[in-house]
């Protein structure tokens, strides 16, 4: 891994963002790094915007990533990728789940869900990888493993050994759940 990695995970309340950032943090601790992780609780369960900052390195001070300095943006939803893209550095990497979650407020005339959010992100950032993780997860047999597919994609540029990831998944989850999550992780990791 590089000296330091700043990863911002974003999405909508209920998508399992906090679980994903917990898993990532644990993997980094096991690999011997200092880790800080920050998010604000409260409105998360009520369909609100959720973001989790994960900072990994030899010694980390601020738990918050600075705008324009994140190495990786992991977006569980296309419009959320666009909302947070300013946190990414110019040569940063974005992973986006293509499945849209249009908020109820979009039915009011004053509000509009962005037309092509992924394209708008591409206009700003060179390295963008999008995947219909929700659909791929369903194909694997469990729609809940979409997060793990995205973590699999993230794991490659992060550069922490695959065995640590798999070991952590096994520790955190029940046997059955771990098996399908490891499959999902592999699927993500082998995406190009």
């Amino acid at each position, binding site marked *: 891994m590089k000296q330091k990695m700043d990863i911002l995970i974003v999405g909508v309340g209920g998508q399992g963002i906090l679980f994903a950032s917990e898993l990532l943090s644990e993997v980094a601790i096991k690999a011997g790094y200092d*880790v800080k992780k*920050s998010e604000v*609780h409260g409105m998360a*369960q009520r*369909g609100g915007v959720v973001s989790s900052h994960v900072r990994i390195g030899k010694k980390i001070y*601020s738990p*918050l990533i600075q*705008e324009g300095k994140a190495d990786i943006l992991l977006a569980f939803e296309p419009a959320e990728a666009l909302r947070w893209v*300013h946190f990414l550095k110019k040569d940063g990497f974005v992973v986006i789940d293509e499945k849209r979650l249009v908020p109820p407020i979009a039915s009011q005339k004053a509000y509009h869900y962005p037309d092509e959010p992924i394209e708008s992100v591409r206009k700003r950032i060179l390295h963008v990888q999008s995947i219909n993780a929700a659909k791929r997860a369903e194909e694997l047999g469990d729609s809940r493993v979409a997060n793990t597919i995205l973590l699999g994609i993230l794991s490659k540029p992060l550069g922490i050994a695959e065995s640590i990831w798999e070991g952590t998944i096994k520790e955190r989850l029940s046997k059955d759940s771990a098996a399908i999550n490891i499959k999902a992780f592999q699927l993500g990791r082998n995406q190009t």
Partner: protein
Amino acid sequence: MSDKKNNTILLSGNEAVARGCYEFGIHVATAYPGTPSTEILENISQYPEIYSEWSPNEKVAFEVAMGATFQGARSLVAMKHVGLNVAADPFMSMSLIGAPGGLIVVSADDPGMHSSQNEQDNRYYAKFAGYPCIEPSDSQEVKDLIGVSLNISTQFDVPVLFRMTTRICHSKTIVHISKRQEYAIKGFEKNPKKFVVLPAHARVRHVWAAERLQKLQEFSEKTDINRIEIENSDIGIITNGIAYQYVKEILPNASVFKLGMSYPLPIKKIRSFAGSVKRLLVIEELEPFIEEQLKTNAIQCEGKTYWTNLGELSPEIVENGFIKAGIIKKNRFSTVKEEVIPRPPIFCPGCPHRGLYYALRKLKPVITTDIGCYTLGVLPPLEAGDTCVEMGASIGVAVGMAKAKGSGKYIVATIGDSTFLHSGLTGLLNAVNDNAGITIIILDNRITAMTGGQHHPGTGKNLTGSKGLKADLAKICQALGVKRIKVVDPYRIEETKAVLKEELNSNELSVVITNRPCALYPPEMRKMVRQKPFRVDPDRCIGCHTCFKVSCPAISESDQKTKKGLTQSRIDPVLCTGCSVCAQVCPVEAIRQVK
């Protein structure tokens, strides 16, 4: 999240408080839930070695912890910043008594108001009462400083204000854990001159408290929780809490005086530090609490000129302050934010507040509302709620509005069950005594929902899961002298509206209680709440979007259009709990339950 070999785990600040309580032998811990402090007691409750409870409000929580420390027990009480306003009475007077067994008062402040009505800086409370103020800057420090605070508390016979902020409470950082140390409880030692603050006693105790503060001042000069990290002598920075982390991130080569104790300050040590640097800066979140004390002591420094006293600090704000102060040059590209559709929080699918507010708003009353999930009713499209101030305010404000006889035909107070038990009872007693012609609606969802589903004296369970009181709200109202008490099912809009209409028109004091539980908490209730989902019949839906007015996350636009080209509605069958409120408002009966 643990690496068991070296006992290193990732903990939030709140989890670290709980761990600290365990390791440093806390006996009794109390709280009323409030973001960002709630997880402290939730985590403490997992340790059977500690007696823990949800008290009905912060004042009672404080008093229970105070009683415990009078017995010589190591005690902790936790609350959000505004909770300390509720507990301010015992907090202040206890200063003259002391805390023989040790007492930590956790104040979880909310700079930036992520989920609060104000962003008051509670460090002033420490100065007000003459207590030491301890401020951690990450989870390891949280745990360590719980131990230090207990030592200070028992050594100086003083409660310690342990001031955290949302960012410290909810960020996770690495913590090294160890075993619990046990401490014996001495037992209460009768001493009226200490424990009974009669004026004659209190006058003597005030002198004692002033001397205690002097000793704490000397301690502050010596303790290593106030430490200097000498680097470069051009710039010296005095900082603490989360601001310390941002300073180290942005300006790693500056000399830093890090304060673990922000009251009383080590003035002599700071004066000497000031003399060793060319320019002295103070970087602290919210108010200039440290800066003012330094200026009072004639120590030249700069602070709030460059770093705002409004809102939460961030690495960007700290960096911009350094740019304004001429210390660093602007050297990075500016970031451009995209304007993206907001996602305001709304009532959950199946939430009982939806139907109640939908029925109530049709009668166009002035609504004094209160603190809880139901405050969200204020937002569009329901827009039901006209005033909201603090816990329990709804009833008193409604009485004042009714007595002043200004505008508004109907005055209605809406208050949740947990808030009613927290501080609505006395307001109701007053309303009865005043013979106020208002309607009070108790939105009784049988849980403290906004903070994540905590028990209270109406739920039948205690914090640790043991059997608790299941207070009957109707009987309480009756006992307080209310004559008109009605119970409504908020899932039935027309019936609810009919009852409300009658009560509003009665011109008498009336209490209406809703009887549906929260759809989310406690989790074991979800199965009970859940019915078969509803779906929109595309052959019937005329695309009028009336169903959007109930503001349900399960309802969205469908891909299909009507013959006239209007977008039809769609109900997410996974999210829908089958409450039927949307079906009741549909003018063409296009929403039907799945068979």
